[in-house]
């Protein structure tokens, strides 16, 4: 199975996200967006709006200053 | 061990190495340069670290680093340099790190001069740096005592987890006297310091912080320090009584001044004056209890200092409401008084009794 065929799951740990939007900015596949709903910290966290587009490049996890994003394969 | 005829500055360094001190950081300043020079020559041989720092500020922070990992560590300086170290002293007190800081006091303020003086009493005993802390202060009056109290300073620092100051002056540092040194301590045999940062290994990680943003937590920390200082006062206060058995008049003096006072008292005794000396050996904690006890039967106290009057405030505090007379005679700025001068002053106040 090539990487392309793999399925990835992006999960934002909602209450750890401060809504900086860097993951949204740097995701080439536009998987993420800023949620209109506030989290417990009072920020608009990122959320996976387009999860099936994820290619597992992990850029979102690298640019996240708050270790708020988890990416799973399979 | 045989006696050694050694200068005060060299003596402190040798005693420190024998006490298990394995790191020394310092910056040159007269009149204590010989201390660092001795360390440079001997510390590495003892398997320890000597490093001449770029500044007093850097030196005291290197002390913090070495103390934080559990090593017996010392720095030394003289008045202007000790002012620069105050930032680090405050941190040491806050962190509760043991370290020994030597101040061979010189005339001031400012650069002042390099002659013996005692103008840093307030700075030493009142904390000196920012924040609500005190530093135990030991004030030797002979080269032998420099050795003994250097060893004591390291023991106190470890036992109470606090920076400890050893204060002398240029005369103490330059003077040679016969000294018997204690046997060397192997630092490996000293009690473990479980709080020291030695890498987490397989255990939990630890941190040492002096920033305590929570007000109540900060307050708790401050009261904890106060309790520590109380125990110190109860258990570690030291002083010497000299010719006090039948004394009707008490001189209070420390360090070099106390030696000169002893000379003066000898003279006064020859003239039939019943004079004795109380010499505080710990300036903090101050031996106030003994002074209060004496004040029950003795009404006349005279304080000698090589300053314009700093320790005299502690004497006044100690004897508050005791209804006794407290006089003061001081020579600041590096003028060394003579026994003749002091004995004249004793006579003057004694006559008024």
């Amino acid at each position: 199975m090539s990487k392309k065929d793999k399925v990835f799951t992006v999960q934002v740990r909602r209450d750890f996200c401060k809504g900086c939007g860097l993951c949204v900015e740097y995701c080439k596949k536009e998987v993420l967006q800023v949620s209109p709903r506030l989290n417990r910290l009072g920020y608009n966290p990122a959320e996976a709006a387009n999860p099936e587009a994820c290619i597992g490049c992990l850029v979102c996890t690298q640019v996240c200053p708050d270790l708020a994003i988890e990416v799973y394969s399979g | 061990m045989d006696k050694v005829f050694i200068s005060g500055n060299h003596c402190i360094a040798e005693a420190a190495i024998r006490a298990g001190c394995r790191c020394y950081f310092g910056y040159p300043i007269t009149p204590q340069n010989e201390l660092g020079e001795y360390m440079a020559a001997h510390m590495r041989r003892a398997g320890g670290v000597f490093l001449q720092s770029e500044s007093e500020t850097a030196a005291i922070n290197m002390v913090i680093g070495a103390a934080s990992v559990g090593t017996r560590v010392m720095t030394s300086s003289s008045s202007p340099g000790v002012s620069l170290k105050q930032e680090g002293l405050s941190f040491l007190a806050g962190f509760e790190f043991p370290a020994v800081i030597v101040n061979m006091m010189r005339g001031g303020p400012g650069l002042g001069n390099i002659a013996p003086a005692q103008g840093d009493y307030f700075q030493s005993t009142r904390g000196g740096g920012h924040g609500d802390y005190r530093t135990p202060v030991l004030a030797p009056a002979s080269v032998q005592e420099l050795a003994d109290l250097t060893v004591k300073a390291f023991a106190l620092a470890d036992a109470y987890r606090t920076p400890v100051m050893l204060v002398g002056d240029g005369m103490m540092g330059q003077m040679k006297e016969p000294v018997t040194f204690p046997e060397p301590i192997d630092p490996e045999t000293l009690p473990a310091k479980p709080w020291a940062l030695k890498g987490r290994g397989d255990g939990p990680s630890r941190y040492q912080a002096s920033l305590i943003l929570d007000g109540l937590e900060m307050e708790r920390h401050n009261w904890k320090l106060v309790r520590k200082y109380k125990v110190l006062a109860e258990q570690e206060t030291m002083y010497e009584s000299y010719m006090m058995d039948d004394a009707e008049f008490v001189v209070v003096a420390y360090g070099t001044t106390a030696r000169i006072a002893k000379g003066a008292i000898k003279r006064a005794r020859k003239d039939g004056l019943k004079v004795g000396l109380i010499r505080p050996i710990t300036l903090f904690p101050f031996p106030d209890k003994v002074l209060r006890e004496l004040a029950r039967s003795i009404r006349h106290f005279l304080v000698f200092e090589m300053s314009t009057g700093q320790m005299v405030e502690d004497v006044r505090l100690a004897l508050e409401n005791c209804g006794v007379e407290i006089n003061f005679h001081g020579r600041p700025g590096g003028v060394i008084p003579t026994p003749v001068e002091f004995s004249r002053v004793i006579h003057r106040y004694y006559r008024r009794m």
Partner: protein
Amino acid sequence: MELLNKWPKYYKKDVISHYCPGCGHGIVHRLVAEVLEELDLGRKAYLVCPAGCAVLAYHYFDFDVIESAHGRGTAIATGAKRARPELFVISYQGDGDLSAIGTAETIHSANRGENICVIFINNAVYGMTGGQMAPTSVIGQSTMTSPEGRNPEVDGYPLHITDVVASFPGVAYAERTSVATPAGIRKTRKAIRQAFETQVEGLGYSIVEVLSPCPTNWKMDPVTACRWVEEEMVKEYKPGVLTDKREEKRKEKG
């Protein structure tokens, strides 16, 4: 399902940092923790955190940490490393800390070639105190204490402290990177690894200067702040390896 980005072993689990949204500190903290794990150094790590925004770094790092007075990080690091050479010693500092009040300590620890690693966060501003001008603020940069922009005639020029220390014989490795882009973050990770390996090999002082966004004090949103790093800051502070004397040092050591 397999988690691809495992939580770094030496980063405390499930702690929400006090850093502002989009702050570069969080990224660099994670990289430090990851590289320590990669090189198996966490068990003997000793990190000095500065007075500044990273003063609370011990809330996040899960290895031994001590706090320093403003500017004194490398003096404390020197004391600790000299006393216990077996420790892996890092001084984590900001630009006010390292290049203003701590200039002397920086210069001299570097010049002595202390076998320590310095992580230098350059965000061209005093962060924790509320956005005052730093030695590293760029010309024209508006801050709380240069409201009309940094004017070299009054305020002097941006200080390139890492370039200064890179010229010292005692400095084995110095690199400037940024954490404003994914590629920059990857380079930063690599630079931190090089620096850490330098200490492990006993080659001397290493420093990684990280250009890092401070959206709050720059009064920008995080994305614009990252762009400002890439478009403006890098003009003043060019990323790249500033010195790499490791090969010479290895030969010296024999």
